[in-house]
């Protein structure tokens, strides 16, 4: 008898992702430090990544790759690809965000979000 791994049920992933997302939102709303807010954003991105990868593993389509001489069935990598994209964008966003934070700091001598309040009217 070969070893059959028991797949993790999908709702486990959902709980984890929801929890991460909620923590991210909470961090975003409650922290006053801009870098902490950025970190919370990263949490939310990662929650999304987990969802993407998990759903792809559970419901991803199996299809036949015909471009090789020997036909071969593989599973869809779409979720993983999306996750990689999201990570890339998150990195870019973090770079931009940190640059903004630095710029804001140079201007206000502070990274407290309550001090940066001219985005109105």
């Amino acid at each position, binding site marked *: 008898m070969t070893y059959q791994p028991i797949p993790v049920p999908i709702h486990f992933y959902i709980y984890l992702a929801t929890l991460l997302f909620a923590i991210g*939102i909470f961090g*975003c*709303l409650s922290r006053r430090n801009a870098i902490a*807010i950025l970190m919370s954003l990263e949490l939310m991105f990662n929650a999304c990544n987990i969802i993407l990868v998990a759903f792809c593993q559970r419901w991803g389509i199996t299809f036949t790759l015909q471009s090789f001489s020997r036909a071969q069935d593989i599973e869809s990598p779409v979720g993983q690809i999306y996750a990689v994209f999201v990570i890339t964008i998150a990195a870019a966003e973090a770079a931009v965000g940190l640059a903004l934070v630095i710029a804001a700091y140079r201007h206000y001598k502070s990274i407290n*979000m*309550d001090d*940066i*309040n*001219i*985005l*109105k*009217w």
Partner: protein
Amino acid sequence: MLEALLKYPETLAHWIVALPFLSFVFITLKLTINKNVDPKPKDESEKELSPDLKKLQTSVMQGYMWPIIALVGLLGFLFLKSRLGEAAGGISINSVIMPVIWIVLLVAIFWPTNSRHWIQKYAPYISVGAMAIGAIIATSLWIKTVQEGLYPGHATPDTEIWKEAWKINWYGIGDFTLPIGIKLDGFAIFGVWMVTVVAMCIQWFSIGYIWDDDYGRKHFGRYFAKHSLFATGMLMVVLSDNILTFLIGWEVMGLCSYLLIGFFTYKPSANAAQIKAFITTRIGDVGFMLGIFMLGLMFTYANDPTLPFSFDFEHIKEVLYKYDWAKANLGWLPTAAALLIFMGAVGKSAQFPLHVWLPDAMEGPTPVSALIHAATMVAAGVFLVVRFFWLFEMSPTAMLTVAWIGAITAFGAATIGVVQYDIKRILAYSTISQLGYMMIGLGVGSATAGMFHLLTHAYFKALLFLGSGAVIYGCRHIQDIRYMGGLSKRMPITYWTFLAGTLALAGIFPFAGFWSKDEILASVFHMAQHGYSRIVGHGEHAESILMIPAHWSFYIIFILGIAGAFLTAFYMFRLIAYTFLGRHKNYEYRGEQSPDYGHHAHGEDNTEAYDKWTVPPGPLEKEEHDLGHPVEPREVPPSMWIPLVILAIFATVYGFMGTPLFGEGGNLIAKFLNHGYPHYPELDWLTAGLMGSSLLIALLGVHFGLKINNTEAGAVWKDNLKAKYAGLYRAVYNKYFVDEFYEEYIIQPVFFVAQMARAFDTYIVDGIVNAAGWLTYMIAKLHGWWDNVVIDGFVNGLAWIVGFFSDLTKPIQSGYVQNYMMVIIIFVLFYLLSLFIR
């Protein structure tokens, strides 16, 4: 080299036209471009332009110069490339020269006045050099023509080739083409020879004359540039084979006449004269233009599709001869066209109704009068009639009009010339009179005689005008002959050359004027006896059609001509007597005591007195004061008397070209200057009798002219005559009140109409416009009130309301990022909630 070039006579003819033009362009360019040659002003008193104006002028010049330089380069290139080697094809110089002329004219308007440029001093060398080369070319052309016997109707294969080769299309639009070219017939060859020689002599003379004048010295370059441009125009007229280039040359001449009459810009009289000359000739030019349009109309009537409209003289002639106008009941058309074209000649040649501008044009420098108002431009009117002679031949009315206008002018102007005192005005009236003679010659059907007189007159009248210029130079710019006298001792060369011109003009036997004037009178006599027959066809097929039957009234023209000849001799020798003979009359005339320097007895005709000659007052008083003794009258320098001598030689011997003494072979004028067929005046008893009688009349005029004006008894007789016929004298002295008549009955009415038109314009047209403007203004004010109060009130009110509510709601925007995020999240939650609560 000349021998080789003579194979292409039209090339040479083009060069003759182009050389003065190129010198004009060159001087103009030099004057306008190289302005920074001498930055330090030598003459502080000279008026400088304001820097702004100068800058503007410079920029305008620079804007105009480059296309001109390019075109001049193109011109030279085309010359060298297309004309010397290949006979056919290529572009003629004409097509390039026309636009250049007009562009350079634009430059002339913005003429800078840099009096210190070196070109001011050396411009005459360019101009005179160009004319001298032209004269050499023209002389060799003439010699070739005479040697080879080329004249119309005697075309050799060579001449046929020229004709084809020198006809080029200026441009074409659709089927319409505009061929232009050079017409080298006898008229053109003799005319070009005359124009170049006379223009060269006159420009040569001008160097000394203009340099003598302070203003002229500063504007030397401008003077010679305009002279050259004028020569271009005249040569173009003489050489054109079509009306279009003819008209262009004609107008260029008119412009240069205008510019040169007003050369002394500081003289108000010169300014008035130039405007008068321009406007008066313009009246004639309107007729000329209408005449050209009439020719176009005749083409429409002739309606021959194989012969479309063209400006070419020969072509028009061909078409118009083909159609039988009398048969189509359109006999008035050639008459109208001829009369309208004659109007142009009347304006340019100063014939009777439009003669008033020529005496006034004497305000210009004397060499200008010599070239433009004696020798060439005024003769262009006659040349116009010569070129359209076939048209005049078609209409007896036109011929008789020409003859009668000429007769009236010849006699009337001669009578006025008798009583004038200004040396130049006497010559001006003489010119008008002689042009009248030419018109008589043309009107009685002898284009040969008219053209012959044009040529001889050009030489001797240019000589006379230059002689008068020399006299004016010698007397330091005094023109009234009453201030002169006895100059023959002080200015011998001027005297003898002037005498040669006078004898030629008076018509004394061996001199040029005798032959030409006599031929005109002989033609009149011939017409009075036999009428005028037009000869159709050439050689064997020639047949004559009687156009104008003989009539006794033509003897009146003959008598007027003879009387004019008498008066001509009379006033010319009056002029000689006043100017060169007798004693100096300056102080006498002014009622002052002549200063006595030793042995001079007052009132005596004592030539010794000229050692202590007293000078005219006025311009010389300062000079006299500086010198401490009176300034002597001076003979002109060689640069001025050499041209006089050249012209005197022409005035003496030129007439032998047209003498009947040498028979058929010797009469070059009759051989080359004829209208389609050679006409030889024969030496028979009638001709000899006419010659003798006209010589007798002229000698009578000479006798009386000297007797009345040079002796004490004559002076008494003259005063008695003046007192007896005071009214007549007054009328003649005031030029028959023609100027006053024009002033009263033409200029004043025109001014009145103009005033009325101006009043109409000021009060009615302007009133309507202003009222419309006022109404618009009031409506606009009303509209503005509506706009400001109602519409703007509504808009502003709306904006106020919006602003009020926005003030109420804008605190929602707190500016805290986390607030915004909260709102987003809440609304997303609401959205998600709404998904579940379906």
